[in-house]
């Protein structure tokens, strides 16, 4: 009798029907808003078979966009990695005044609309500004050219590595580095042989996320690019052009490249998380 009652009402968990309802709602939410759009990309990309899929990828403008996207990421990501490590080192290993202000500045690009991130560089380098006029005189093209794509991408993606490393390095403390230094290791040696092994998984995730965002950035890049087809269009911009031309199969085919990249990023992230839970910091999304 007692056992029966316990089964009927357990005050430590919800009744079965509530559990079922909540689970269904959660699954429906993920299904409608995440899984369906994801599957649609591949469904639309292969709507006319493998032939048109690969034709869309092999088209010269698509190839140019892929090359440009890789070029932008190859410049922007390493710079942001150096910045991220440098910022994490001074913030996590030292106590100084103004640290919170510095932290706030680092997170700033997260709260700036991508469109505004592009706009600020148009204002800075555009021909209407003094600096822009100077550049024009000396025939240096920044805005509506590759350099502005790189700079805007750096702006949008630079917090990722820093924000991943800072909490991780703060949690690990300074004792190991102090010991290494007192034993005579140089600063660089200390970093390479003591700090780096401790943060490598967090760093890898930060780099991957930074890269995925760098390759996929749309708003900021769209404002500064000028949309010169085959010259200043990255993959997302090329997708936009194809989509607006109602060339849906090609648009989704090209889009599928970055979708695969996003999926790989997530798989690696989850892999690292399950295996090295303690070695990366769940910093959330900001």
């Amino acid at each position, binding site marked *: 009798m007692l056992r029966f009652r316990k089964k009927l009402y357990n005050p430590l*968990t919800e009744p079965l029907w509530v559990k079922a309802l909540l689970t269904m709602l959660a699954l429906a939410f993920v299904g409608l808003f995440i899984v369906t759009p994801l599957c649609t990309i591949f469904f639309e990309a292969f709507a006319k078979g493998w032939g048109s899929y690969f034709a869309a990828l092999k088209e010269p403008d698509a190839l140019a966009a892929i090359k440009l996207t890789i070029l932008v990421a190859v410049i922007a990501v390493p710079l942001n990695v150096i910045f991220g490590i440098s910022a994490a080192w*001074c913030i996590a290993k030292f*106590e100084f005044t103004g640290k919170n202000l510095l932290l706030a500045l680092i997170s700033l690009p997260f709260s700036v609309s*991508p469109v505004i991130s592009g706009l600020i560089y148009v204002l800075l380098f555009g021909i209407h500004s003094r600096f822009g006029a100077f550049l024009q005189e000396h025939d240096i093209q920044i805005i509506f050219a590759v350099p502005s794509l790189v700079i805007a991408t750096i*702006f949008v993606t630079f917090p990722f590595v820093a924000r991943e490393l800072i909490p991780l390095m703060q949690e690990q403390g300074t004792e190991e580095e102090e010991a290494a230094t007192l034993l005579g290791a140089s*600063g660089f040696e200390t970093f390479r042989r003591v700090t780096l092994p401790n943060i490598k998984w967090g760093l890898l995730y930060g780099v991957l996320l930074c890269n995925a965002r760098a390759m996929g950035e749309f708003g900021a890049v769209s404002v500064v690019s000028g949309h010169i087809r085959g010259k200043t269009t990255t993959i997302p911009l090329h997708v936009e052009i194809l*989509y607006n031309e109602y060339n849906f199969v090609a648009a989704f085919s090209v889009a599928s490249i970055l979708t695969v990249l996003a999926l790989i990023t997530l798989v690696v992230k989850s892999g690292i998380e399950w295996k090295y839970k303690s070695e990366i910091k769940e910093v959330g*999304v900001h």
Partner: protein
Amino acid sequence: MIVAPMFPLSEKIKKPSVIPGFGLTLSFTLFYLLLIVVVPLSGLFFKTATLSWQQFSAAVASPRVLASYKLSFGASFAAATFNAVFGLILCWVLVRYKLPGKKIIDAMVDLPFAMPTAIAGIALAAVYSEQGFIGSHLEKLGIKVAFTPLGIIVALIFIGIPFVVRTVEPVLMDLDREIEEAAASLGATRLQTFTKIIFPNIFPALLTGFALAFAKALGEYGSVIFIAGNLPMVSEITPLLIVIKLEQYDYAGATAIALVMLLASFTLLLGISMIEKWSRK
């Protein structure tokens, strides 16, 4: 040691430490921030300062711009509220229930964060259009999603999901189960335990997640423009209006609107940090 003279102030502003590299890394960090963030962003203020008050108010308060604020704030608020409710349910299911494939669902939550916004935008437009997988069913019920303000909310829900889930999840995980047992042993029903014990504990995190999703939604561009329809006064979000002004070479007008948006998101950011301080107490 070699870099110490480069930053003679360092001993005054920082606590002493044997670890080298403070001057070098701080100088580089500040230099990079100045170059990439502070100088370009300050241009926004300088450019706006060249406008007279009449020009400024005409740029930021014309009927078309006001309609875009209303839409951007309204849609962002609706999407963030929706995400707060369903994000909490999703968190609860992921943390508390046994479910096959839970890890995969958990990983999928981060997809909007890793996926390029423009690609999410065209995918959502395809799914929710009249011929789309979900849109065609909604069409039969008389609900139009794509190319209406409702479509904007759908896109903003997509990009906001991880913000709520990733903020609430760790708090829910760390929640001490013993207080729930104590409440139950003192005779509380499950509903009472939830409303009086669990919910107040996760509320600050939920509010933070809501505010983060709201702030992100306000500035969102790529995922929205493909599904929005972009009709002036009806389905034109503020970031799009900035782009339109830029394309018309109205730099001053674009900058003035951008400044208003920027101040709105800074206010939200300040609010978020205040919530975080309050919840730590």
